[in-house]
């Protein structure tokens, strides 16, 4: 059963110029993205800066209105809704099922509220009585491995990692159907990051969380996700179960990304491969396969004909004309 089914999602920003502010072009920030997230599954969205990861997640949360496409969401009451087209008013009751974990644990918590009230806020807004709220806050603090006394203290008394736990507790307060986490550990230091990664793994097991995990750190993603979707200039170029994607990538861009990550092992030194060229501009994506100017395997066809995302093996999708004929290197 799928909690979320995104199809052909687009988010374009018009570019205006001249005295009359005429539209002269469009930034194709997200340009036809489709994927699903099954109940209990964590899907990671990865890719270089500017490829559209945050734009996708903000469309799902409807912090942005999509240009087109559908976002079918199952709030768990038998019927799915299309978040892409739902009027704002109809969205409100759905908010509790869709929660967000933020990147920055410093700016995302109200400094004037006690931690207990921060965590209870979504409960209060949704009419949970005070007595139940209290019990639930204690339960949530325990869930994120924070002491009960944290309840009566203010955010400034806590470290970055502890604040991130508080943010996670708040996101989980209403047992959401889907959690969207945009770079939830990238602002954290190594030792704290390890604690939060373990916490997320625990929560996935215990609560069967469904999660969209946006990240640019491919090492972190390998630890926490069940499947990975790789984005390049507004489109998904590959989707696969995590281990398969890392071991045997099927899209040259995935290979390029993986090869660029330096492994924490000096014996593997020098294997790091450098990709040529810069990320394409989503205002002027190259014709054909957008990756072709950087792709070591590009042929004439790649420069004119855009490859579609197709199933190249059971459960594995890639958008590359040559996906079936080239052998790509992964990281074992």
């Amino acid at each position, binding site marked *: 059963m799928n909690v979320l089914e995104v199809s052909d999602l687009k988010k374009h920003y018009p570019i205006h110029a001249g005295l009359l502010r005429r539209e002269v072009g469009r930034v194709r920030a997200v340009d036809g993205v489709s994927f699903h997230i099954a109940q209990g599954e964590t899907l990671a969205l990865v890719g270089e800066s500017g490829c559209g990861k945050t734009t996708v997640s903000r469309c799902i949360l409807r912090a942005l209105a999509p240009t087109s496409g559908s976002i079918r969401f199952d709030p768990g009451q038998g019927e799915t809704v299309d978040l892409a087209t739902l009027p704002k008013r109809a969205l409100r009751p759905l908010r509790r099922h869709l929660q967000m974990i933020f990147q920055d644990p410093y700016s995302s918590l109200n400094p004037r509220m006690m931690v207990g009230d921060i965590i209870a806020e979504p409960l209060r807004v949704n009419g949970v009585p005070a007595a139940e709220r209290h019990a639930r806050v204690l339960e949530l603090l325990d869930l994120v491995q924070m002491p009960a006394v944290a309840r009566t203290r203010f955010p400034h008394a806590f470290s970055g990692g502890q604040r991130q736990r508080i943010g996670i507790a708040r996101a989980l307060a209403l047992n959401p159907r889907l959690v969207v986490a945009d770079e939830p550990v990238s602002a954290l230091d190594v030792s*704290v990051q390890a604690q939060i990664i373990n916490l997320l793994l625990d929560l996935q097991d215990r609560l069967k969380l469904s999660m969209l995990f946006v990240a640019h750190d*491919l090492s972190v993603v390998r630890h926490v996700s069940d499947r990975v979707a790789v984005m390049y200039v507004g489109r998904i170029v590959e989707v696969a179960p995590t281990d398969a994607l890392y071991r045997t990538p099927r899209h040259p861009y995935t290979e390029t990304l993986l090869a660029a990550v330096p492994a924490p092992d000096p014996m593997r030194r020098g294997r790091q491969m450098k990709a040529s060229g810069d990320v394409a501009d989503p205002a002027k994506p190259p014709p054909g396969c957008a990756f072709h100017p950087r792709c070591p395997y590009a042929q004439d066809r790649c420069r004119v004909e855009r490859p579609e995302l197709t199933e190249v093996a059971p459960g594995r999708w890639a958008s590359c004309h040559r996906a079936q004929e080239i052998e790509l290197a992964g990281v074992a």
Partner: protein
Amino acid sequence: MVERTSLAVRDLAVHFEMEQGTVRALEGVSFDLHAGRTLGIVGESGCGKSVTARSILRIVDRPGRIVGGQALLDPGTAEEADLIAMDPESRRMRGIRGGRIGLIFQEPMTALSVHYTVGNQIIEAVRAHNDLSKAAARDRAIELLREVGIPRPELRIDAYPFQLSGGLRQRVGIAMALAGDPDIVIADEPTTALDVTTQAQVLDLLRRLQREKNIALMLITHDMGVIAEMCDEVAVMYLGRVVEYAPVADLFTTSRHPYTRALLRAVPSILATPRQRLATIGGAVPHPGARPSGCAFHPRCSDFMPGRCDAASPAPLRPGEAGASCFLEAQP
């Protein structure tokens, strides 16, 4: 061949006098930089990596104060000079800063102004350290841009920084650092803000320039992958001290300090198995204003020996010798 020691840092101590008390940001840091070699400096946020770099260049922010130690340029030669003894505003120090010693920042925009073209800024840097005409300095600037792998430098030289991608900007930052033809380069998290693909290019560039110019490189990072990929020797810092120093291969296979071992186990790996948990280090880095007694790592250490580790400080490392500052090591 005996390698030339370019810089010897000895017992460097830096304090920040704050309202809440004295923050001992550095408490006796020692290490050597050798021509043609790369020393990695690694450790969690706040351990003093940047303060170390800034002290050598004599640009410590207020209210920071160097309270002891030396930074000897060309130690043991007739030209030996202690940077710590110099007036930071003196002509000599200004000549060394950006001249003999180049600095590369995490965010290239710290070194670049938004108001001037890339060319103007590099030309100025070139002329600050070389007696060249404007025209000759411009030629040199174009050459520098070409050296750092910027395509079509004759055109790019007239671009403003905001017109360049993050990767190109960092290349400009490196070109700036090279403008005075330094033989020592201090790079403070030069790739932390970059995508992995761009990081791979920039690391490759640093490696190539170092080889060509026999530069002594001090590479600050918190990324163990970057350490494994780039460094010859590594200094691990914790709360203002070097707690372990080792050749890079030994650091990863036979690290001697419990903190190093814990740190290595906590790092997410591109080689992880699905849902692999990380070993965590208990607690968090204490604030340097509240340094624990004895070995500052003892409250988090799995090898903690009560009555010993919390009673006295383990002997500091002897510069240039591999080892750990820990009571598990033989004490003098």
